[in-house]
């Protein structure tokens, strides 16, 4: 059975390889700290597969060390040798639309895995671990795309793709770690009882009898709590237990399906506005090399506000039909 752990090792190998590349790059301005950051990150991806049999706290220590190394500015991108703009222009005309093939291989193979190969059964066991089809598909598609790209483009040196990947990875920099750190924070918040405290406040201020005010309190609570946590999934159980179920459904007679479905989407409007949803809002600007780290959020806020208002209107009407 192929499991997602193998794909995590692939990612670990990429990060570790980046660390090794930097270690042998004498021109790198922040050579040792950067090398240590990427290598430790890569090793952590391997170690993470064995937390059931090995102690977890060393990994926690390394994760905090990674955050400090990268968060205090000890790491930074090097100058990676690649082709010039003029060379790329020439080769784009020469190679033509075949250049799209490696990039398009990734979604095609991923989808093949999700819809086709996930149904294959070997010796009574599914070939792909259940619930991990997409992750495995992504990993396999990357390997296939690398092979296709290497055959098609005949790069020299042959394994230059690692260095080219490192070029983009280093430009993203510390933001690579942030989404996972925010997940850790979400878990710690939950353990510390942040959700319960917010729920208690919400229940305290929510009115009992006005449909309009109760709907707004539920929707606004979803959006605001999502902005703080960076994730509507964390907000949903808390706001639903505080307002959605006891007041809107039980007391005011709302239909649960539309109320909860649209309530969740009101939370999504909050996700569009928050740097806490780093993988959606901060990593893309880093990947695109934007000057303004918060530029994407600024574009999304007007859409989020308008869509939030529409959601509130929907919640006022549809669950009460």
């Amino acid at each position: 059975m192929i499991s997602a752990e193998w794909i995590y090792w692939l990612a670990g190998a990429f990060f570790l390889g980046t660390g090794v590349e930097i270690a042998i790059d004498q021109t790198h301005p922040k050579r040792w700290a950067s090398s240590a950051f990427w290598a430790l990150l890569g090793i952590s991806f391997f170690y993470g597969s064995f937390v059931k049999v090995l102690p977890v706290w060393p990994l926690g220590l390394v994760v905090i060390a990674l955050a400090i190394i990268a968060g205090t500015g000890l790491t930074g991108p090097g100058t990676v040798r690649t082709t010039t703009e003029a060379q790329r222009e020439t080769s784009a005309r020469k190679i033509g639309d075949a250049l799209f093939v490696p990039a398009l291989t990734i979604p095609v193979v991923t989808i093949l895995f999700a819809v086709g190969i996930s149904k294959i059964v070997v010796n009574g066991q599914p070939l792909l671990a259940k619930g991990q089809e997409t992750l495995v598909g992504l990993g396999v598609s990357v390997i296939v795309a690398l092979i296709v790209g290497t055959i098609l483009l005949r790069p020299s040196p042959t394994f230059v793709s690692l260095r080219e990947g490192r070029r983009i990875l280093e430009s993203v920099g510390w933001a690579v770690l942030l989404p996972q750190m925010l997940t850790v924070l979400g878990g710690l918040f939950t353990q510390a009882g942040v959700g319960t405290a917010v729920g208690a406040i919400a229940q305290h201020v929510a009115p009992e009898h006005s449909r309009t005010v109760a709907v707004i309190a539920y929707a606004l609570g979803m959006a605001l709590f999502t902005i703080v946590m960076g994730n509507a999934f964390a907000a949903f159980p808390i706001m639903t237990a505080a307002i959605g179920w006891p007041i809107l459904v039980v007391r005011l007679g709302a239909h649960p399906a539309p109320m909860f479905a649209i309530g969740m989407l009101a939370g999504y409007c909050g996700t569009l506005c928050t740097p806490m949803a780093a993988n959606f809002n901060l990593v893309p600007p880093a990947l695109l090399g934007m000057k303004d780290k918060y530029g994407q959020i600024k574009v999304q806020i007007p859409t989020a506000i308008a869509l939030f208002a529409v959601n509130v209107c929907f919640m006022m009407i549809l669950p009460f039909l």
Partner: protein
Amino acid sequence: MLPLLGVLVVVAGFALRLNPLIVVTIAGIVSALLAGISPLHILDAFGAGFASSRSISLAFIVLPVVGLAERYGLQQRARLLIEKAAKLTAGRLLLVYLFVRQVAAALGLTSIGGVAQMVRPVIYPMAEGAAMRLAGADELPDSITDTIKANAAAADTVGAFFGEDVFVAIGSVLLITSYVDANYHLRLDALQIALWAIPTAIAALVIHGFRLIRLDARLARSLAQPSPRAGNS
């Protein structure tokens, strides 16, 4: 109310523009200590949280493929492609992408698209190429480039968010049904939840699509007035 201090650390840290990694680490440690969690358990929580969230970072494994194709001019090719489609402006192109991304996500195909594998190598260079044609120049001021990048990334996110919820087997739909069924003894149909996401999905397409259509006029306006920071004419 003591655990809420951790939230305060986050808000203050972001407001002071400290590095988010540091802010998040301190906020986590502070709220855990205030809740009386022992230091060893805090380290455990950091380790376990990291291990179980590795799937988020898998998006980065596409970078060697993207980087390889970029080395041979993928972004330049995408720009050449847009030159052939004269009617496709930056705004219209992103509108088409928003629509495709949203419909694909609604069908469960979230792996079509994404910033690393689609926006950076293909969609953004095409939008930039269209804006270059609008400007009649080979280079664009930084502020314009940033605007195009921000809008390309936003189209990807909005499309994915408000498309995936229409698909039955997605995490958020299953979270709603499993949470409500477990706690309130209902039997919510996942299909019902997915269907009730459709009105908002349409509203998202209309609202964000309308803003993308207006993007072209905005770009034209900022191109017309000479930006003080722009190095080219």
